[in-house]
């Protein structure tokens, strides 16, 4: 008795329990917790009940996490009460909460598209969704046929989605390099798996997963090496401490530090590799090459989710890294980022012109958009931060909506993503074509859409931040980009429909809702963006 209490007491003395602000971590905890529950569901629920239970669980978890984010923001955690939690591993501040909110909303909408089961024709009398009946089965093999016959579904996608979301929530809030790395892996690994799970065109899906995985792992190795060098330079992985070392405030407090801080190469190379790891995730040139293939191969709901949420999370992390850790190096990273932004804008826009597949087209478009957002990042001003936040919010909904529309246009082989098949869509399904046109116009940055407001915001920030030339390049790239968005619109509205053309599936309310949300956000942010701009600018301060 006494020994145990004594032991406990001593243990408490020796290992002080960390202070964990569970309340402020609620969004992450809810999502990860739900993911774990989801895994248990897979283990214990009967097959028939899993779909409903998983979808509901995911939806509820994301909604309540979003409520938690709102709650935190309402109590001033985004502004006056911002601070570090979990022993300084995570920041709860404006950008973090804003981006977490965006990620959660996007994921919530993505869950709707994940759960859609009316698009594919029924298999053996059962509704099927976009995911493989059994991911491990050989495509077209006996195993797969049996799985389809048995009505198997890969309901694991919901927990996987939740894990990814959990990682994404942490990623922009990570306040030390270790957390950053772990968060990256936590959201990347489920995505690799999700990519491989398409019901149709499975070979492409698996190839996408393989490419994404190998290149993702490759890039995280760079990131990790960058972390190592950074740690070597500053002797710490905490953002604030690295920042103060970089800014010379406590240089030489220890002998070791005096040795390493004298060697800026460590810092510069480490910083460059770190940034590279993040640029890979945002899909900036020249780290973009995975994007078209993965976007094309992955199941479209996953593509939509990945394109929207990953970009938000990765840019959040990039912003924090550049603004919190490396402000002292602004003069070093700015020119480099200029270059990356310019080539991203131009390469994305130019290569997209000759694309023939809608999903690849949107992939290249996302590369160009990464360039535009980088223009806002480069501004290195508070308005730069808020403009990026706004752009991310605007862009993610447009992307999600666009990919949701892509899921609707189908022919015998599943989704008809080849552009030639979209000819005359406007005649057959004016509404679907019109909605897609709205998304395309938003991508193109036509006024009255969120894309314009976002583009204006980042370009304005860039111009104010002295990057006028970047604005000019951005404008040129926009003009080039306009060409291919317009091309799709021409195809949809002004071409005669093909006789054997695809049909537009009538979706369930799930996808309809997702698309409707996309349209609504696109138009509201386009016409009356002020409230959200306010939100973004209030949220535009990092805690250090």
């Amino acid at each position: 008795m006494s020994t145990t209490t004594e032991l406990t007491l001593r243990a408490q003395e020796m290992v002080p329990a960390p202070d964990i602000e569970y309340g402020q971590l609620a969004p992450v905890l809810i999502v990860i917790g739900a993911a774990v529950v989801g895994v248990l569901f897979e283990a214990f629920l009967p097959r028939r009940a899993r779909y409903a239970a998983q979808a509901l669980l995911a939806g509820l978890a994301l909604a309540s996490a979003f409520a938690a984010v709102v709650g935190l923001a309402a109590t001033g955690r985004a502004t006056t009460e911002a601070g570090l939690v979990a022993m300084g591993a995570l920041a709860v501040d404006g950008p973090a909460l804003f981006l977490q909110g965006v990620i959660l909303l996007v994921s919530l909408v993505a869950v709707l598209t994940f759960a859609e089961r009316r698009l594919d024709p029924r298999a053996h009398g059962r509704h099927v969704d976009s995911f493989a009946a059994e991911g491990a089965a050989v495509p077209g093999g006996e195993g797969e046929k049996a799985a389809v016959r048995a009505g198997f579904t890969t309901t694991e996608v919901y927990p996987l989605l939740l894990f990814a979301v959990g990682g994404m929530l942490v990623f922009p809030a990570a306040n030390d390099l270790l957390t950053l790395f772990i968060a990256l892996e936590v959201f990347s690994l489920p995505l690799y798996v999700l990519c491989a799970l398409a019901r149709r065109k499975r070979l492409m899906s698996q190839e996408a997963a393989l490419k994404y995985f190998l290149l993702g792992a490759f890039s995280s190795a760079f990131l990790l090496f960058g972390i190592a060098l950074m740690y070597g330079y500053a002797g710490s992985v905490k953002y604030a401490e690295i920042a103060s070392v970089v800014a010379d405030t406590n240089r030489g407090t220890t002998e070791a530090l005096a040795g390493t801080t004298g060697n800026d190469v460590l810092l510069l190379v480490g910083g460059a590799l770190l940034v590279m790891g993040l640029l890979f995730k945002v899909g900036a040139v020249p780290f973009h090459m995975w994007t078209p293939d993965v976007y094309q191969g992955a199941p479209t709901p996953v593509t939509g989710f990945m394109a929207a949420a990953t970009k938000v999370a990765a840019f959040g992390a990039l912003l924090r890294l550049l603004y919190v850790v490396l402000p002292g190096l602004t003069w070093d990273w700015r020119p480099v980022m200029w270059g990356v932004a310019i080539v991203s804008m131009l390469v994305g826009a130019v290569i997209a012109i000759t694309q023939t597949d809608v999903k690849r087209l949107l992939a290249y478009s996302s590369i160009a958009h990464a360039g535009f957002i980088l223009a806002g990042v480069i501004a290195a001003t508070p308005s730069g931060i808020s403009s990026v936040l706004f752009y991310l919010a605007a862009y993610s909904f447009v992307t999600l909506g666009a990919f949701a529309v892509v899921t609707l246009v189908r022919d015998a082989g599943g989704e008809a993503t080849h552009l030639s098949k979209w000819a005359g869509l406007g005649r057959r399904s004016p509404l679907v074509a019109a909605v897609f046109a709205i998304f395309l116009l938003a991508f193109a940055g036509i006024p009255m859409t969120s894309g314009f407001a976002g583009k204006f915001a980042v370009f304005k920030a860039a111009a104010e931040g002295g990057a006028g030339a970047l604005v000019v390049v951005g404008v040129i790239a926009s003009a080039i980009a306009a060409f291919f968005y317009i091309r799709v619109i021409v195809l949809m509205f002004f071409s005669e429909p093909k006789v054997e053309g695809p049909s537009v599936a009538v979706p369930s309310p799930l996808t309809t809702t997702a698309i409707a949300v996309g349209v609504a956000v696109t138009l509201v942010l386009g016409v009356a963006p002020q409230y959200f701009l306010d939100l973004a600018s209030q949220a535009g301060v990092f805690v250090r």
Partner: protein
Amino acid sequence: MSFPLLTAVAALPAIGAVATAAVPAARRTAAKWLALAVSLATLVLAAVVAFRFDPGGDRYQLTESHAWIADFGVRYELGVDGIGVALIALTALLVPFVVLAGWHDADPLEGRTPDRRWRPTQGFFALILAVEAMVIISFAATDVFLFYVFFEAMLIPMYFLIGGFGDRAGARDEDEAAKQRSYAAVKFLLYNLAGGLIMLAAVIGLYAVTADQLGEGTFSLQAIVEARQSGELAMAQNTERLLFLGFFLAFAVKAPLWPLHTWLPNAMGESTAPVAVLITAVVDKVGTFAMLRFCLGLFPEASAWATPVVLVLALVSIIYGALLAIGQRDIKRLIAYASISHFGFIILGIFAMTSQGQGGATLYMVNHGISTAALMLVAGFLISRRGSRLIADYGGVQKVAPVLAGTFLIGGLATLSLPGLAPFVSEFLVLVGTFTRYPAAGIVATFGIVLAALYVLVLYQRTMTGPVRPEVERMPDLRKRELAVVAPLIVLLVFLGVFPKPLTDIVNPAVEHTLSDVQKTDPDPEVEAAK
């Protein structure tokens, strides 16, 4: 707070557009009547605006100002000066005719079962009304950003009008026609979008400059002009010039000014006549209007700096457009090139920086709108009868359809600026206004009037006179609906040609303000003649 009249003028067609689009597929005719009613109601409201406007009053009247996007320094600011009133009136005036002239342009093709969901007729008229709304807002906006938004946004409905509702005359080979049409639409959009995006860079630059110097970025035209005049805002020379170029380029594409004009013949040639009217008579006017209001108002020094080059380009446009019009084989393309020539005159007048030049340019915008509408719509009626746009396919129409030929001739005479018809007044003012400051430019421009006579009369001769060709023998004369379109336009042409004073009274004070923006006064005559 008074009734937001300007918002109402723009909102009415916007609401009308939504309502028209919502008319069920089977009720096509109802949609047409709805669109016509809305456009007429808009005309009434525009007339109210014109009457409420006091030429002797403040520079901008009927102003409205509301917060919009504070973060970008953007306000919803409307207000009109005389120039704006004139152009809003023109827009509201022409749209009912466009609607009426296009009555059957979007009917489903015969022999094809109309799709239940595909409602081209509703779409056509809704798009026209949408364009009207956006154009009116652009004319009324005194906030640069607000203007820019609608300046760009109006491209989209225009684009669908051009690409979606082509001229059926070329429909001998439907595929080829569709290809041409979508080429024209894409060209229109990309040209204008590219111009607009360059302007976007300049708009952002303007914000950066004002934010830098005034402490808070603003897009309010009045605020910027005032700040300039008080010396609070002093743009660096190079900055001002670059920003000016950004704005000017966009407007020059829209106007269109040589060598940025090549989209216009395609767009006007491939679209239906009413849409072509909408392009050249209404939408393009936003470009020249904006030069007058924004280029000169915001960047007076850069405007003066650019004047020589702009004048030369305008002269090239005048002569080049006219020569190319002579060389055309397609009626609508001919009218398009004629319009390019006329836009040259407008721009010439604007940059002559005299009250006659700018007053003339403003009148020119209105008059050119009416005269081109008359000519183009009659040409459209003609083309719809024969099913060909080629001049060579006609001959002797005068004999079979004298009223059609007569109205066509009047439209043509207006285009060649015959005295007594409205365009003469404006063209002469532009010439005189240019001559007083730049005699050589004035003289060169004068040659445009000979060339105008040439292309108009050659067109008339080849289509209307000579022996009657067998293909046109059974051509019916103008129908009542068509006459209802053309007759009022002709009456207006004559009225404004004989008695333009109501218009000049409205425009003159606005022009004086604009001239004072650029700190220019008319050159004094050499000899003070005994009065």
